[in-house]
């Protein structure tokens, strides 16, 4: 499927537009329902603390879903993502204070590959901590 970005116009090191994604307890409840992941560490503070967490934490898969938006918003066509992987390095801690947390995501073109594909490396942080490691997407460009 063609994307809206032309391979010839992309250079290694180019930054993608950075984005910030707020996450509150309500976000996590909505994501739990949509994804089917009802693990109580994502909505029940007492339970989260009982298993040694500082507070309720966000779903790793929610963070993964937000991070790729830096790529799909840049591409236009999300169907151009060929491969996407992340490592969950630190949890996103989401306090019940009405404000919650913010996931900040930056991305840059790390390599130009064969077949008009590029690899984008993403960096996701929350509260100053790196929450995703080895986060990479391979995308098909025009």
């Amino acid at each position: 499927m063609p994307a809206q970005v032309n391979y010839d116009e992309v250079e290694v090191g180019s930054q993608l537009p950075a984005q910030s994604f707020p996450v509150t307890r309500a976000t996590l409840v909505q994501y739990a329902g949509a994804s089917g992941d009802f693990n109580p560490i994502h909505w029940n503070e007492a339970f989260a603390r009982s298993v040694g967490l500082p507070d309720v934490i966000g779903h790793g898969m929610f963070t993964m879903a937000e991070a790729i938006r830096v790529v799909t918003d840049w591409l236009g066509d999300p169907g151009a993502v060929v491969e996407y992987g992340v490592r969950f390095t630190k949890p996103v801690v989401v306090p019940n204070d009405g404000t919650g947390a913010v996931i900040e995501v930056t991305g840059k073109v790390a390599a130009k590959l064969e077949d008009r594909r590029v690899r984008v490396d993403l960096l996701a942080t929350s509260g100053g901590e790196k929450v995703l490691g080895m986060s990479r997407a391979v995308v098909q460009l025009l």
Partner: protein
Amino acid sequence: MPLDPSFIGRTYPPTTVYEVGREKIREFAEAVGDANPAYLDTDAAKALGHPDVIAPPTFPFVLTYRAAAQVVNDSDLGLDFSRVVHGDQRFTYTRPVRAGDRLSVTCTIDSIKSLAGNDILSVRGDVHEESGEHVVTAYMMLVARAAEGE
């Protein structure tokens, strides 16, 4: 007790068919706050060359996570899920999941390792359309932290 490495390579039966609905894709896209028209508007998806709305890249996890319950709850394997954290996740796509797909997931244990008392379990979920077409493969790495006093 570390997990039994003889489970490496074990493949579980394919799951019953999951039919991907437009409104399920919409619900998922709204839950991640993503208003990309390719997820929400059939005409916009068609303009990009897709036969119908497509699902966000991490949507397949809805199916593969559910399918992995076969592995996680396999009493012969004996994984203690209360100690499990999601270590990493990767998808390789043949094409995006789209509305109308009738998908089945086949789970395979790719590897079992023990590291500093932690069990590291890698499970692959191959997602096929009913026609036999490969759609996406999800690779999930789970870490079962060492039990207290072990």
